[in-house]
């Protein structure tokens, strides 16, 4: 189980992602679209740099340390790769990669959610009637 100081959950590991050991492979996988793939990359990178970002931010966001140090820290965090920041992560639908209308608990867009629950594939989901 991967542990990190941030609240990021474990990122999905796919067989299609490039591993650091072997050579560059053709990126051919099972993601719905390239956007989804990029989102996956961002998530991975955010996981890698999470600890460092937290520490540098701790230096930056306090009133005790001298401002010179904090300015240096600002520069350092800006030099980190852009995809390492968690802000760039978008909670897309897992099935359709839809960026909007996604319920976080199920990681599904509203359309897929409705489709599955109508076919009784969602545990504990029932049509509301009152």
């Amino acid at each position, binding site marked *: 189980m991967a542990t990190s*100081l941030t609240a990021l959950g474990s990122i999905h*590991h796919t067989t299609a992602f490039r591993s650091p050991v072997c050579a560059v492979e053709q990126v051919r996988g099972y993601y719905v679209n390239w956007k989804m793939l990029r989102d996956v990359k961002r998530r991975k990178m955010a996981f890698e740099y999470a*600890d460092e970002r937290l520490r540098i931010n701790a230096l930056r966001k306090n009133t005790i340390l001298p401002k010179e140090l904090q300015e240096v820290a600002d520069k350092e965090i800006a030099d980190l790769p852009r995809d390492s920041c968690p802000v760039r992560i978008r909670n897309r639908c897992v099935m359709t990669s839809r960026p909007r209308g996604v319920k976080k608990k199920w990681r599904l867009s509203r359309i897929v959610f409705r489709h599955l629950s109508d076919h009784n594939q969602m545990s504990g989901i029932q049509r509301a009637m009152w």
Partner: protein
Amino acid sequence: MCCDGCVTCVSARHCRPLYAFAMYRRVFLSLSHFQQPVVFPQDACIYSPKCISAATPRIFRAAAPCGYRGLSTGSVLCSEIKDEPPPLKTKEKAQEERAEETSPQTGRSGKEKLLALLGDMKVQVTTKRRARPMAAAPGPVQKRPEPRPGEMESTISMFQEATAAGGKRDTLNPALVAAASAAAASLPDGSRVESELLQQLRKHEAVVQAQAGQRADGRTLGNIIANMKVGRRGHPNQQGARRALDDDEDDGAAQRHAQARGVGGGPDGERKRRSQLTGKRLNIFSKTAGQDAVAAPTLTLWDLELANAIAAAVKAVPRNGFEEMIQWTKEGKLWRYPIDNEAGLEEEAHVPFHEHVFLERHLEDGFPKRGPVRHFMELVVLGLAKNPYVTVNQKVQHIAWFRDYFRAKEDILSEAGALQN
């Protein structure tokens, strides 16, 4: 008729006489062949246990007792069916070694003597009960000349009176003689019949008295049996198996069967087991046989690693959803069920709490003892102390990172005046 091979039994009442006859026939055949009565499953209505329990006791009751003259073809047969001589013979074998020691004979074994005694015995058909024990197995029945039915009552009563008086004398009982003469008088050839009768009586008396009284060699059945000791061979299993054949004789067969077996438990079972274990050594194996025994092979980490490597190489495509889930769990994609909050933190459970809370000791080296840096670091340590979700190593690494960072930025800190104590 249910003898067409069908399994279902019409009714017990209807069945009994029909296949009781069939069973009788089979018993006859088997008896004639000197075998144990075997019930073949081909016989009709044997499958239903009701029929079996109803009919078989009848059959065996008919077959076993030797008083049933229709079925008993000989004393030997009857005894075989009853299964008495086999245990008796084992007893005799055990005693023949001891009997020979106790009372030396003229070259004959105790078993032979006993058999001779039993063979010589004759049945005395009287209503009077003798004081001495009589023969167990009846010999060939002595047939008396039956008087005519007309004089039956009187002659029988005369005979009874005569025998009741006792026959311990060598000479014939005068009452017997009178009865014989009375019986002979009723017949046409009176004198010859009387003489023949008296001869028979004398013979019989002689035999009976010889059997009842002391024999020439001083050994009677009573003496032999009294001298016999019960030999404990320790074959409870064999005896239990033999006893099982007599089960159907009684109505309480199941109880006796269970009792005989002892259900393998309790003190009887232990005694049986002990008696089986303690016995004569067979000396089949030599003592050095077990010394070269190889120690049980244990799995090493290398073996496990090899097994894992083989499994990884031959990673088969999951055949079903279960195997897929198993694969994902092994990879770490799927959590283990039931959900454990501390799934990957087994070692952390052994770490004591004070190492989590009291982290100021890590601030002793590498950090200034005063100033804003120290202030900052104390706050960091305070935050870490309140964090139960991180391991101690991670906390230490956290502090170490800051140490390295402040060391790298020393010039900026000193320029800013943070390092002045």
